[in-house]
């Protein structure tokens, strides 16, 4: 036991004496959370709008008023000719142009048809479609109001209500993603690099010749990163609740429990990588390419899994982060209990068992 504790202590020395590593390990979650939570948001606010309005009548004014009062848009001003539109976009000042047809109100009243064109910058398709969607809603709202006269025939007005995230906050999607990413990064990358380092410097050979059992070496290597992961988990949770305003609607205990299982999966992945490589650099690259990219791309953090092409959707099933994110969302946001995350729980547990078995086997095999 004494032997084991001495070894764990040594692992902590390795981490804390490397000041930059320590700083990165402890600050990374904070930086990532703030980056993703505040900056990489899909909400579009305060977009500047330019208007080309040859009609200047009551209807166009009504629609423009809608834009003026909306929190999403700021009416920047009128332009005199459609030719100016492209120049405006190039300057990057505006995000949307509203073009009315001539004699807008007159046409609308007499023929029942009037045209308004929305022009957005398609070089960022997501923003463009969000903007046009907001704008369409405003125009429709104006139409509804002005038609809302006694003689109007029966109308059907759908009212949309978004459950769990009524204000469409981006952080609801990103926080679980960042949690999945950080824990994977710290556990898998750091474990694999630290074992690869021992192989590179030759100390692993000395350890293997020593009376220490390989399983003891593995556990001692993993313990410090487990601790750091728990600290990071705490930081992420505290920040997301108190700074980003994330709710914890479900049980906090369950959330921590499922996170611990996910940490085990990540540690096991790190061990598996380190059993296959002998160089720190390779361990680092494999962790980054094979673990981080899929976590970001295929876990549903950036792009909905449902939208992925067939093969990638299949691949996403083997990514632990995907299941972890689903579980975290269910617990934190939807406030569901254990039954609701049973599937994710079973999947993560099986992954943990499978990976730990595989890496311990491989580690022993390497001794041959």
């Amino acid at each position, binding site marked *: 036991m*004494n*032997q084991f*504790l*001495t*070894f764990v202590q*040594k692992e902590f*020395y*390795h981490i804390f*004496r*490397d000041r930059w590593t320590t700083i990165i390990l402890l600050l990374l979650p904070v930086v990532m959370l703030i980056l993703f939570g505040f900056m990489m948001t899909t909400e579009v606010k305060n977009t500047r709008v330019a208007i080309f309005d040859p009609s200047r009548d009551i209807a166009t004014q009504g629609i423009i008023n809608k834009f003026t009062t909306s929190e999403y848009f700021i009416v920047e001003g009128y332009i005199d000719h459609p030719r100016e539109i492209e120049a405006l976009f190039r300057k990057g000042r505006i995000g949307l142009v509203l073009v009315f047809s001539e004699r807008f109100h007159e046409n609308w009243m007499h023929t029942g048809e009037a045209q308004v064109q929305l022009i957005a910058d398609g070089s960022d398709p997501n923003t463009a479609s969000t903007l046009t969607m907001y704008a369409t809603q405003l125009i429709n709202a104006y139409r509804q109001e002005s038609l809302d006269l006694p003689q109007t025939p029966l109308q059907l007005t759908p009212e949309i209500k978004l459950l769990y995230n009524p204000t469409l906050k981006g952080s609801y999607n990103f926080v679980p993603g960042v949690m999945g990413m950080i824990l994977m990064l710290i556990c898998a990358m750091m474990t694999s690099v630290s074992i690869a380092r021992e192989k590179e*410097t*030759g*100390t692993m*050979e*000395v*350890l*293997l*010749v*020593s*009376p*220490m059992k390989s399983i003891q070496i593995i556990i001692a290597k993993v313990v410090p990163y487990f601790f750091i992961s728990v600290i990071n988990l705490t930081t992420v949770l505290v920040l997301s609740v108190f700074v980003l305003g994330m709710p914890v609607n479900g049980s906090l205990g369950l959330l921590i429990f499922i996170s611990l299982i996910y940490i085990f999966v990540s540690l096991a992945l790190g061990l598996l990588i380190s059993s296959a490589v002998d160089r720190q650099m390779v361990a680092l690259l494999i962790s980054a390419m094979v673990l981080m990219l899929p976590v970001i791309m295929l876990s549903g953090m950036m792009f909905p899994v449902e939208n992925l092409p067939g093969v990638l959707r299949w691949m996403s099933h083997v990514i632990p982060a995907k299941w972890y994110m689903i579980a975290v969302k269910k617990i934190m946001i939807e406030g569901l209990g254990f039954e609701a995350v049973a599937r994710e729980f079973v999947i993560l547990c099986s992954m943990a068992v499978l990976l730990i078995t595989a890496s311990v086997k491989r580690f022993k095999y390497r*001794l*041959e």
Partner: protein
Amino acid sequence: MKSTTRDIVISAQQLTKKFGRFTAVDAISFDVYKGEIFGFLGANGAGKTTAMRMLSGLSAATSGRATVAGYDINTQPEQIKKTIGYMSQKFALYDDLKVWENIRLYAGIYGVPEKEIAPRTDRLLEQLGFENERNTMVKSLPLGWKQKLAFSVAIFHEPTVVFLDEPTGGVDPAARRNFWEMIYDAAARGITVFATTHYMDEAEYCDRVSIMVDGKIEALDSPVQLKQTYNARTMDEVFHQLARTSTRKAD
């Protein structure tokens, strides 16, 4: 020199290791005696490291048997690990640990009793003249000092046998001679030294030397005898006469 009637510490009989169809170590047999300095020579790829890995319990033998300190390498590798010391060619100390922390770590791993660690550390640092380096990070020690420390750490738990894998790589000749004095001291205390080396001048320091060529031991005797047998002036010449017969490519 030393008589050969003493206790046998390492004994190998027809020890063989195959990787698939490749025979890395081909039925080698030899005995090493207590307190002896045994030089294990051979070109790269001759099978030295593989043989040493089998003897130190890192790798299982394909056939044949061997005992180290009375324990069978096939059935009692765990006991062997407790009774041997090992120093690799990379002086595997931890760069980011202090001198005393490295000693403390290996003492802990080898199960040196807690009470003895501190006084033995003091004594060791004094012998090495490292009293002022107790709290120095190993990475700032010169290479020759690292090597002395690595050897001291490898024998800190008073093993029966210490395996040295190319212990003097990259160290200047003066430091090497210095280092061999430490090896003589250890042998005088009864620790058997089993060392692989590239440097033929070092082979001269050994009590007995075995030379491996293509997985087999081609010669085994004291340096003086070997030079007579092969009618050579130096061990270097002996080695080249034997190595010339090699058909195996160095790895």
